[in-house]
């Protein structure tokens, strides 16, 4: 399956609502190795269009920083598995995906240190499957 990491420079983009690019990677699921494919531009202002672009290229999961409730609803409606409020260097975050350590507090945005709280934000297709 394909997973999208919302990126800004070499880190996870701080806010998906205004993010402008995503690193698309191939993986067999959470805990499996991640193979980066390409970095694509996504529409900056519209969450609906962001989701449309991602689903149209077969993305099934999204890893991003902060996300508004409205945008989160669009992502979940689009059937994407959401891992939000993630922070950190993109290489480290991809490694954390493949080692199932993404819920560790070092990959949480400030104020979101409790991994359990972040679990609640993991919604959509396959939610809870990786707990």
């Amino acid at each position, binding site marked *: 399956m394909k997973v999208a990491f919302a990126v*800004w420079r070499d*880190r996870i*983009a*701080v*806010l998906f*609502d*205004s*993010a*402008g690019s995503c690193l698309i990677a191939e993986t067999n699921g959470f805990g499996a190795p991640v193979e980066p494919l390409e970095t694509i531009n996504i529409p*900056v*202002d519209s969450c609906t269009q962001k989701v449309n672009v991602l689903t149209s290229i077969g993305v099934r999961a999204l890893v991003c*920083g*902060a*996300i*508004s*409730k*409205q945008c*989160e*609803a669009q992502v*979940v*409606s689009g*059937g994407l598995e959401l891992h939000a*409020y993630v*922070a950190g260097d993109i290489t480290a975050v991809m490694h954390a995906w493949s080692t199932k350590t993404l819920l560790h507090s070092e990959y949480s*945005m*400030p*104020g*979101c*240190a409790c991994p359990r709280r972040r679990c609640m934000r993991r*919604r*959509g*297709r396959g939610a809870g499957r990786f707990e």
Partner: protein
Amino acid sequence: MDSISTEAILESISDGVFTVDHDWRITSFNRAAEQITGIPREQAIGLFCSEVFKSSMCERQCPLAKTFETGKAVIDQGGFIVDLKGNKVPVSVSTALLKDSNGNVIGGAETFRDLSEIEQLKKLRARTRFGAIGSNSPAMRSVIDMLPAISKSSGTILITGETGTGKEVLARTIHQESPRKNGPFVAVNCAALPEALLESELFGYRKGAFTGADKDKAGRFALAQNGTLFLDEIADISLAMQVKLLRVLQEQEYEPLGATKSLKSNARILCATHRNLEQMVSIGTFRQDLYYRIHVIELHIPPLRERLEDLPLLAQEFLDQFNVLENRRISSIDSAVFEAFYAYDWPGNIRELENAIERAVVLCRGTSITLSDIPKEIAQDTGLSAQRNLEPSRASHSPTFTAQRDVLLEVLERNDYHIATSANELGMHRATLYRQLKRYHITLP
């Protein structure tokens, strides 16, 4: 002033203030900043400001970066931050360079103001409001009055109205105000998907159900479990699909493609269409049993041309929204623009108004939207109005003329014929209102 009194001042003000070093790491963070962001100071210090602030401006329109680049302060740049609960908090941001006693730049300072209360006050201008939906129109009152009871129930709702009237916004509002608000809101545009795809999208499929189905896929009914499923353009589904949908609505059960066992669905169903379902039933293109099943409660959203009283409110809401998105500070809309808005028929309804305001915000060079900023087909209607004014006998027969005259009379009556208050509600200057009264042959009592 010594550092202790500077710190005391920073702690006492209601604006959030933080400072950063050259690496964008936070070096100080005051009490208001803690309150607005929800992040304690001890956690914020030393982190990247963007990851603490989480603002719509960070990536492309960072005011601090602008200040570092130009050496000039940025004053009141608009944007929003997202708090830890996912709420958008509108803020205005100002920045300045931070220098040591020798004048060397040692970093930057950013102050930010929470504009939530101001935005809230702006929203309260609507006479009737339910969640995100506000209105000053009597035509909308009956709809809004029903919403509290409808939101609490779990019955199926049919939302009707022309395209662009805000059927999905209404559905989202019902979900947001319902006991299911913590569950998902899943929207499906039935017209956008071919029949074969619609079935697998709605009900999902099992591995091996067809060529290419290499793993199980949950459908929208499953995704909307404990939440709300919004089926837009319900009239556009085939008769065969209508039978399958009827079964889910009746039995609360469905079978994913290739499954041998039925699954239970507890999603609340909201349907919408711009078509006349009753007529479709009479000609046999929509099943009568499904019609009665979804037509438990019907909410009809009137077209914008029948709720012109809402133009100022909607236009202002869109202006505020696009000011934030486009990082502009346009403060008003010219009364001539409103004249054009009132004269126009709005075939695309609220969506068309939204697009017109978005275009205007992008094109506007000053601080007020003028006629030249709005689409030609809307602006041209002012010219027609002026022409009609020259020919009162002909103009008085036009539906637009009558509609505008009715709006003016209604607003005046509601405000006891007080000119300033009525002009304010209509979003125009008093002098413009006097001209309108003359144009539409309205005499004050």
